[in-house]
């Protein structure tokens, strides 16, 4: 034949190795459900716990472990607000902006946060310490305005409380 076949250029994904312990944990999760796919969100959380976020290569790796398509995994990863597909700071600060907090001082609290941290939603401080994100009603409306840092929920938080509060998260 006049023309020899040529290869399609494949864009290689950055190499990512699933940690064996994480893989084992994912497989353990799989056992709780009728189909492996159900462990998808948990798998993303497991990877995120180790890396702080879900690196690109993890999508393919999780897809392989669960036996589903990478398109499906990325679809899930980008749907949920607590799965981060970009690097985040050492601490994730979730500010509740729902109605009860909005009615009890969210605006001032948010402004104080932006001032103190020098970042807005979706941004990470230059020192990689905090990432600021909004969150749906934290279910702490009797303690509004509320916020959550990593696994800790606080409320009511006044702007004055912030400096002391943030200190606990180096």
């Amino acid at each position: 034949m006049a023309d020899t076949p040529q290869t399609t250029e494949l864009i290689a994904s950055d190499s990512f190795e699933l940690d064996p312990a994480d893989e084992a944990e994912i497989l353990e999760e799989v056992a709780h459900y009728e189909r492996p796919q159900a462990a998808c969100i948990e798998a993303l959380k497991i990877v995120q716990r180790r890396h702080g976020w879900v690196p690109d290569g993890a999508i393919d790796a999780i897809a392989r472990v669960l036996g589903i398509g990478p398109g499906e995994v990325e679809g899930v990863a980008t749907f949920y607000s607590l799965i981060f597909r970009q690097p985040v700071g050492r601490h994730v600060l979730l500010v509740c902006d729902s109605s009860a907090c909005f009615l009890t001082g969210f605006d001032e609290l948010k402004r104080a946060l932006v001032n103190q941290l020098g970042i807005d939603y979706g941004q990470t401080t230059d020192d990689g310490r905090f990432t600021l994100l909004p969150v749906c009603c934290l279910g702490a409306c009797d303690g509004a305005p509320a916020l959550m840092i990593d696994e800790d929920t606080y409320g009511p938080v006044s702007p004055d409380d912030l400096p002391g509060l943030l200190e606990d998260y180096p």
Partner: protein
Amino acid sequence: MSVSIGSQGDSVRYRSRLQQPETERHPDTHPLTWRLRDDGEVIWLEEYLRKDGYESVRRALADRDPQAIIATMKDANVGGRGGGGFSAGLKWSLTLQGEDIPRGYLICNADEMEPGTFKDRLLMEQQPHLLIEGMILGALANNSCFGYIFLRGEYVTAARVLKRAIEEARHAGWLGADINGSGFDFDIIVHTGAGRYICGEETALINSLEGKRANPRTKPPFPGQSGAWGKPSVVNNVETLCNAPGVILNGADWYQDLSGDSTDNGGTKLYGISGPVENPGLWELPMGTTGAEILDRAGGMRNGSELKTWLPGGASTGFLLPEHLDLPLDFNTVGKEGSRLGTGLMTMVPQEQSLVALLRNLEEFFARESCGWCTPCRDGLPWAAKLLRALELGQGETGDIELLEKLAADCGPTLTFCAHAPGAAMPLHTALKHFRHEFEQGISKPRIKAVEG
């Protein structure tokens, strides 16, 4: 209250609590909370058993009569506490069961994200076994083979407590194979979410449980016909399930009597209040308690400010006026006033609050939390939020309010795929109805006309 000796954090750390002291709560009047302690510590298995725990399950397992459980629940007419008010007994009676039908799943909706709602958190953080007990009853009634507690990811304390309680229950033979020697198998795990309000919608929740994007599913088929993995599934709210043990133990009549004559709905309800009130909080009160009484318990509006309007049960309910405070807060009454009982946790709005700004906040929330499946919600709500922002900034144009009305109307029931968008439309629609003048003040420009061509 422990004295803060540690860092600043401890003093502002949030703890879920009930406002009623132990002395006020009794087994025959406060079925949901009578066991709770004033110190807010978890009621672990030993204490729970001491306080009558698992008694309903013991009885139900002895009878092994699922239809009787369903009948009692139906008679008691336990309205769904997740916001819809649909009778749990009726739902259970519609679950497919039979020889050639596979056993399905009992799913507890613990995704609590409705703005203004903080009731399920308390039940799970302090009294996990009541939920487990309710789930076993539900499983028995629905012939479920396995249970999932779909818990929002942010409720880390609840997750820890529930996991340990399940472990306890399993250990003591209340979960697992052959429960309490009855031959009935049922187990539960906690499935934690990763955010997104829409996961609370029961069919979206099932998709999420299956590890998929949380788009809702079409109904019919209902989860009771084809739910998780295509098996008959029941989704109930935490509080709903927590009502079951009392009903089974004490009967439908007792349950009906709990609420007295002021309402058709029986039982008690975890009512709550938030916003700028003196003492925001949570109480177990008879179904049909008035808003006025709850506001009163909260010590009234903070700093004596005047009440402008209020949401009876979360962001997706319609605005009520101060004059509605005297109505019994039950499913029917509130429904008749163009709103919904929703989760029954009120949000109070003071006179000085701009409603345009509040609506902007609410619609930004609903727009952000749309799953993105259907058009009126996905594309209409962000547009509404942008219009509200313009009005808030005084940059509205003539026609904006009519457009907002249209966008809200387009999110009516049957017009969108699930109830999220109607939930977004209700506060918008009612605010435009009651407070139109505030919105009109945001209009500064005539409408820029499209060039005719």
